[in-house]
């Protein structure tokens, strides 16, 4: 009697599992969580604009007409890893979120990376810079779109060293991102015969850089490398102009500069800066068309930054994978595997692929900030100087320490 009841119990479970499996295959509900800095120094480069980008991806996918139910929620991590992880946990446990997108701030991004893996969700990061997301700390649940510190170092950094900038002084934001960018750039500098003569680590969100700039000036380094981002970078560049640093013969290397930063600095001060991005609104007809639709919905009519563009492209590609699977299996690893097996192609980043370590490969572009006289509109800031194909811009798989590659 007892064995029989166990057997029927097992049979029941097996049946339940199979029916559940069938239900998953037809399940067409998706919940997206856009986690970003909604109000701090990174809010303009990601923030509400990233949520908008995700919404536009949903609309443009046309999935609603095919019977899909897609919902987007957003959260503010305030640049604090503890808050970011708490939101991520709640989203997975209570709100049943399937995918977390954006997450600028490398410190928060790495912390959330672990949660997504633990909960077997999907993580499409666009806002964070650290190359560790697809290297030492890679995860089968993570796709890293848009850019990373390795790419920044091997484009802007390399170009400057080759142009004769062989001594460097770093101004580094004192957290995971700054450390990763300084590390990756230093590797490029030394590999090309240059030398790092010094550096300071400054706290995140510093209003006044004059002390640090004086130290950089005293170091006599040819290049002052800015391993910081957002408001920190704009303040550094503005104040460097005040202290006559560029006039004194030293060159500023803005390793990471966003469209919104150039707007905040103003062309008068920013003109001539060289930097790298993977997306600019004024590249071609497709990017202009998207940006026009985007800026019409933004409060200050700003066009998308590369981070926001990356959120859009990432979500679109995620939907392609879901469609190919025929439904949402609510299984992060499975979805990410599908995403990796499909080539990427969209209006904003062109053709590319997702490598086994989760890194999305696409072209990177070297830009120079226009002179005020060259700018024809309120957001006409960049001049294209060159481009680097994706396979040269990002970490080669042979150099990656990602555990997923050792299968």
């Amino acid at each position, binding site marked *: 009697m007892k064995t029989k009841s166990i057997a029927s119990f097992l049979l029941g479970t097996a049946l339940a599992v199979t029916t559940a499996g069938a239900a998953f295959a037809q399940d067409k509900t998706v919940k997206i969580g856009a986690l970003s800095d909604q109000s701090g120094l990174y809010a303009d480069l990601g923030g509400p604009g990233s949520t908008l980008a995700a919404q536009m991806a949903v609309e443009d996918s046309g999935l609603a007409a095919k019977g899909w139910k897609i919902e987007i929620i957003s959260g503010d991590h305030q640049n604090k890893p503890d808050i970011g992880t708490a939101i991520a946990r709640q989203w997975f446990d209570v709100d049943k979120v399937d995918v977390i997108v954006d997450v600028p701030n490398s410190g928060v991004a790495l912390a959330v990376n672990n949660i997504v893996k633990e909960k077997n969700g999907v993580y499409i990061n666009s806002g964070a810079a650290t190359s560790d997301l697809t290297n030492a700390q890679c995860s089968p649940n993570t796709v890293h779109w848009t850019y990373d510190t390795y790419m920044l170092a091997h484009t802007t950094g390399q170009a400057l060293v080759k142009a004769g900038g062989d001594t460097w002084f770093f101004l580094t934001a004192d957290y995971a991102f700054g450390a990763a960018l300084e590390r990756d750039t230093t590797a490029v500098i030394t590999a090309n015969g240059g030398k790092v003569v010094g550096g300071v680590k400054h706290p995140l969100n510093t209003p006044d850089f*004059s002390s640090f700039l004086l130290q950089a000036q005293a170091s006599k380094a040819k290049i002052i490398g800015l391993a910081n981002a957002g408001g920190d970078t704009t303040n550094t560049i503005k104040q460097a102009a005040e202290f006559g640093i560029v006039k004194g013969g030293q060159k500023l290397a803005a390793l990471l500069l966003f469209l*919104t*930063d150039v707007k905040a600095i103003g062309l008068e001060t920013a003109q001539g800066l060289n930097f790298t991005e993977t997306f600019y609104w004024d590249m071609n007809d497709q990017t202009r068309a998207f940006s026009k639709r985007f800026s019409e919905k933004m409060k200050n009519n700003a066009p998308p930054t590369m981070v926001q563009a990356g959120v859009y492209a990432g979500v679109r590609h995620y939907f392609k994978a879901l469609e190919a699977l025929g439904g949402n299996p609510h299984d992060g690893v499975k979805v990410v595997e599908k995403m990796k097996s499909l080539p990427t192609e969209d209006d904003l980043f062109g053709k590319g692929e997702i490598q086994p370590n989760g890194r999305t490969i696409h072209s990177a572009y070297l830009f120079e900030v226009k002179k005020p006289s060259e700018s024809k509109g309120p957001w006409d800031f960049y001049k294209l100087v060159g481009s680097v194909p994706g396979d040269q811009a990002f970490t080669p798989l042979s150099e990656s320490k990602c555990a997923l590659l050792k299968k």
Partner: protein
Amino acid sequence: MQALYAQLLVGLINGSFYALLSLGLAVIFGMLNIINFAHGALYMMGAFVAYFLLSLGGINYWWALLIAPIVVGVFGMILERTMLQWLTGLDHLYGLLLTFGIALIVQGVFQNYFGSSGLPYAIPDQLKGGMNLGFMFLPIYRGWVVVFSLVVCIATWFLIEKTRLGANLRAATENPTLVRAFGINVPRMITLTYGLGVGLAALAGVLSAPINQVRPLMGADLIIVVFAVVVIGGMGSIMGSILTGFALGVIEGLTKYFYPEASNTVVFVLMVLVLLVKPTGLTGRAA
């Protein structure tokens, strides 16, 4: 050694902002007994008024130095008349919570319309460039900030401690009923004092507009440090807050040189030490 001189000077520049802001807080606390948490938001408004004057009206920096404090000061007086005056006689906590709420609302509104990354404001032509002092390159604008804020600080101190108006004001806070009996309109005086304190914050905002970004959170980042300055100097002490403002700017500058990682905590470490040794602050009197 040269580097050290440079850091001292840079510290003095930042100290000017601390001094101007903590002075306004000290005036308001001393006269109204209100811990004005909206101070940072009003400082930010000062910078934004300067930005609007220039970008919309073509009105230059020099006029902004005059107009912005008046505009923001009037806004402050409206706040005082409509809200703060009802808190007279209540615990400090009520004023703190109300002004904190006001700060959040003001910042939220600005952030909604202008985002977080800020707007550019150029240094006025007359103050562009810099001079070589031998040990450092001093931007003329920064030198101007130090001199101008010192003058404003001393003038404010003089007004409150040495003039008849200041004497009335101080008397009114000691014993409002008695002062009223002499025919002085105490509520109006208090409103004007709040306007003055707020105007000082707006003035600091205009001064900082060309150096920092004009952005909605510029005050929120600064206000916590300024409160630490006021606590160290002694709540309500005018001279104390001026001196501590400059001194802490210098100490912070030195920390940025010797141990940069601690530069945004050193002020709070000092605050803890001062509170342990002398809870009324360096120049404060026991209540």
